[in-house]
């Protein structure tokens, strides 16, 4: 029995404990044996992840079932590593936002982490093998014709650039122990129905290709501070916004927002007569107003080796008798194929066109008696807010 036969038997569960130990010893001592082992390991890994959508002859499906059933659970290490990185981030965000669990329909961060862990395989490529080019002997032969494997469902399984990078990151987790050539061969020969990615690098950047889903819709609420402000500078749940965006590329989005927010503006002037003098008084007030915004976002997928997508946004819009300008930075946390939990921190300049005191005084009639004015000279405020909500990509 050749070493490759024993490796196959190892994955098929056909070796005794002593034989497995011996095989491992040989693999550690031989780079050639390690290469063969890793090739088979990769194959099992891919087959495991694609077991739900294999289109192959019956004998091949049976074979894969056997492989999957006996496959070592090495894959769970890498997926758990994502979840382990995500847990503290998610906990922090949920604690800060306060409403994350409600938005995600998850009772706690632990359950969310479990959900994320389960979601990772769901966005992995689904392999379809061409019946006429792949045989069972190909499958078990060390010179298996990887180029014959077509990942025809790959494009369909990618929702965003984040998903693509997630897949690649998973593959790269294997690279230190898997020969790179077969991986690259696979990726170089991926036939994607829409994106036509031809290399790992292109797939990693993935920013120029048009995504399969071209729109996003988001609903967020926010809490933040305003400076200057009336008595209450912190405004919990100050804003809500509904956004609809269009993907110019897989990483650049433009869109519109309908906003409802709390703004600091001087109240309507109150005019009275004091000691024969016309007295005009204003005070700073918190007012809710509807507004509209245009925004542009840039997405950076797979930050820090996680499925998170960083998003930076600039926006500008109109509020009643004023305008807003804002810069934002945030993350998208995938919670499914089409949903993401979104968190953005925004710094905004809010300007009101309400007349300044000097203008109010200039327009006041002082022909018969002096006019006095008391009030804040505040027409521009600086807002910082944490927006959090959900996003749907379609």
């Amino acid at each position, binding site marked *: 029995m050749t070493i490759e036969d024993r490796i196959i038997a190892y994955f098929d569960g056909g070796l005794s404990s002593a034989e497995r130990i011996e095989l491992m010893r040989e693999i550690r001592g031989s780079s050639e044996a390690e290469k063969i082992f890793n090739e088979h390991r990769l194959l099992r890994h891919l087959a495991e992840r694609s077991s739900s959508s294999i289109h192959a002859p019956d004998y091949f499906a049976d074979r894969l079932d056997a492989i999957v059933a006996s496959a070592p659970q090495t894959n769970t290490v890498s997926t758990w590593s994502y979840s382990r990185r995500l847990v503290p981030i998610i906990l922090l965000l949920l604690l800060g936002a306060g409403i994350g669990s409600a938005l995600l329909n998850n009772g706690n961060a632990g359950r969310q982490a479990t959900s994320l862990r389960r979601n990772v395989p769901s966005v992995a490529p689904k392999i379809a093998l061409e019946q006429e080019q792949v045989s069972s002997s190909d499958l078990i032969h060390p010179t298996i014709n990887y180029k014959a494997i077509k990942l025809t469902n790959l494009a369909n399984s990618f929702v965003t650039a984040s998903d693509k990078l997630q897949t690649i990151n998973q593959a790269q987790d294997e690279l230190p122990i898997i020969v790179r050539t077969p991986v690259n061969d696979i990726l170089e020969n991926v036939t994607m129905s829409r994106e036509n990615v031809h290399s790992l690098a292109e797939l990693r950047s993935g920013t120029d290709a048009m995504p399969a889903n071209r729109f996003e819709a988001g609903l967020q609420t926010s809490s933040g501070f305003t*400076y*200057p*402000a009336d008595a209450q500078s912190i405004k919990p749940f100050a804003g809500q916004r509904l956004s609809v965006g269009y993907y110019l590329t897989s990483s650049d989005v433009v869109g519109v927002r309908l906003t409802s927010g709390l703004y600091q503006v001087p109240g309507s002037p109150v005019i009275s007569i*004091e*000691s*024969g*003098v016309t*007295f005009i008084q204003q005070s*700073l007030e918190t007012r809710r107003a509807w507004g509209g915004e245009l925004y542009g976002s*840039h997405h*950076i997928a*797979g*930050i820090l080796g996680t499925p998170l997508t*960083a998003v*930076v946004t*600039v926006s500008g819009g109109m509020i009643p008798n004023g305008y807003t*300008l804002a*810069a934002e*930075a945030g993350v998208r946390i995938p919670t499914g194929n089409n949903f993401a939990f979104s968190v953005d921190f925004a*710094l905004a*300049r809010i300007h009101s066109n309400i007349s300044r*005191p*000097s203008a109010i*005084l*200039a327009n*006041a009639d*002082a*022909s*018969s*008696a*002096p*006019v*006095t*004015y*008391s*009030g*804040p*000279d*505040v*027409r*521009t*405020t*600086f807002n910082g807010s944490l927006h959090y909500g959900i996003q749907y990509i379609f």
Partner: protein
Amino acid sequence: MGSGKKILSVLFVLTGVSATLASCSVADAPPNSPAPVKNVADYYYPLSDVGMQYAYLRTTNIGSDTVRLKMQGNDAMSSAIGNTQCFAADLYKIGAFQSDLFFAVNDSEAYTLGTISCGTLGGYWLDLKTPLTEHLQWTFTTNGSYASITVTATVIHRGLKMKMPSGMTFDDVTEVLYVTNNADTTTKWFARGVGMVYSTSNQSDNYFGSQMKFISEIK
């Protein structure tokens, strides 16, 4: 471009945007209450500026006239309340001298002494007192026509903007209401760096009449 470089580039752009926002005065100053005034002389006549004249439109029970208040500097007989210095000013109509008015001022108090010189303080009027903050009250007793009267002064507003009938504006004005035990009322507005710019009173038989409007300063 690597992911790290991309993030750095984006952070660089965001920093630039933030700096741009900051450079164009991101927010207006908060509407804090005016700080307490520690030197009431800042809101009083420039008494030591000898020769400076203020023109006022005065309304009395016999009509309106234009009067001038000409600063004469320190009074030679200065011996005033506490640590104040005594100043004199001529209140006159053009071509006709009317009377000398005397004032006593230090950092914490400003008095109108009337026509009686600094040596006699029976009829003074305590115009301003530190710390000059909204709602601050003080009382003083002064000699009326027939009997002493007690006056309660209250700072009604601080930091007012004020537009005069002439169109002149002042940015930092203090309004003080004086109420006597006879329910007579006088209100005066003092502008920082100028002094009294307006007064109203239901008693017209005083030097300032029922109304006194600042018109201009003449050097």
